[in-house]
């Protein structure tokens, strides 16, 4: 019974605040949203006004995309970008479009075949538009081949088996894995390394990272994935959102240190923890 009692004790009642729903974190969640939006807005305006905002550090995986597309061109083999399970509303998909438009533009400029695999027919609709736009911007709208934007249902293993088959049959020289992945991460990058493709992964699922690290040449992890996607747009406004995100991280660190100091000064008071529990 001990454990259950402990659990019951730890769950302090949540006070109800006016018209807001009375679940834990309703108000603090709202504040988080507002603070982050505020910070983002501030840095965007700063960037728009042309003020000097901090620059982003180089992310090695990004330069590698250009290099990889270049090598694919030399070898006369295609470039492939794959994403399986992220749906239309998932945040990973928003990042995916950044990579997609960058890689497709490069492929169009270098006159290299570009294959895109996706597991969602709704995302496919957007992907096609993004790639078409990239070819248009590169001045080669006629080179866009709709048959290279491929959809097949996102059911994990059928999708992966088809993807693994395509890798072996089409032998792309450059492979980009973007978004969130699950168990198939222990097969697909290794299949790619067997055909000696340059592989770049931008992966948001931390649990699958070790497999990408073992098989890929470059891996963008955690927040890097989104930062890189925004960075690829080369617009100062986008950089502004990353600066805002970094400010938020510094703020978090400060709160954590402060909370720790309070807790050390007055042990077992949980003063800060409870203060933030609204």
């Amino acid at each position, binding site marked *: 019974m001990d454990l259950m009692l402990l659990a019951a004790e730890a769950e302090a009642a949540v006070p109800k605040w006016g018209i807001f729903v009375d679940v834990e974190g309703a108000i603090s969640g709202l504040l988080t949203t507002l603070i982050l939006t505020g910070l983002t807005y501030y840095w965007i305006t700063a960037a728009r006004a042309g003020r000097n905002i901090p620059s982003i550090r180089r992310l090695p995986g990004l330069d590698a995309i250009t290099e990889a597309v270049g090598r694919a061109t030399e070898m006369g083999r295609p470039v492939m970008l794959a994403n399986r399970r992220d749906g239309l509303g998932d945040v990973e998909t928003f990042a995916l479009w950044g990579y997609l438009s960058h890689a497709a533009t490069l492929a169009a400029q270098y006159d290299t075949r570009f294959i895109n695999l996706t597991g969602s027919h*709704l995302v496919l609709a957007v992907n096609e538009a993004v790639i078409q736009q990239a070819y248009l911007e590169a001045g080669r709208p006629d080179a866009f081949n709709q048959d290279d934007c491929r959809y097949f249902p996102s059911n994990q293993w*059928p999708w992966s088996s*088809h993807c693994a088959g395509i890798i072996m049959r089409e032998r792309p020289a450059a492979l980009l894995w973007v978004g969130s992945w699950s168990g198939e991460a222990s097969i697909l990058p290794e299949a790619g390394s067997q055909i000696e493709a340059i592989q770049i992964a931008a992966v948001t699922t931390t649990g699958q990272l070790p497999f990408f690290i073992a098989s890929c040449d470059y891996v963008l992890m955690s927040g890097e994935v989104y930062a890189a996607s925004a960075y690829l747009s080369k617009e100062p406004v986008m950089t502004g959102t990353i600066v805002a995100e970094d400010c938020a991280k510094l703020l978090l660190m400060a709160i954590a240190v402060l909370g720790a100091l309070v807790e050390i000064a007055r042990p077992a008071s949980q003063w800060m923890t409870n203060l933030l529990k609204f």
Partner: protein
Amino acid sequence: MNMDPLIMLEAVGTIAVLSYVWKENAAYRFFEFTAIGLVAAHSIVQTWNNYLKPTVRDRMIGDGEWYLLIPAAIGLLYYTRVMDKKFSWLARYPISISIGYSIGYSLAYSPRPFLKEFRNNFASFGHVNDYIFLLVWLLVVFYFIFTLMKKTKKTLRVTGAITRCLIMIYMGVLFGTSILGKFSRLLGRYQFLLRDWLRLI
């Protein structure tokens, strides 16, 4: 040996798919394409039988919820993507609605579990592990700050290297634990082949 045709089919399929390890081949390709056709059909069949048909039958016709025709009409705009180019922009409507909808959800709900974990960082300091935990947490959060890390500063370089090591420790832990999970999947297949099909064990 179990001669049930479905078990036989499954066993042949199992061996064919496993043969990918050796080389991509026609038997593998057969099951690969079959599976794609199958799951594509299955997702249509399931949505049709378990969702669309009952909803139209019970809710629209049964309960008279005819307003469902409005989302249906908007949903049909998705098909303009595969029709004439002149109309394909209409698909942006359902797309932007559903993206907006999910954005609203993540703006509202995603901070809550995050805050719960964050608060735990400084919940108690009774044990040396709590200090280590906070320190590691701080280092890793700091590592993923993109605008500060000018690689020239020596202190930053050193903390960066330490943090990378910590991340690699964690990656190793993940690799070590999940490789065992992969083994158990293969063991499951062995059990099927040897026990359910060949009846050897």
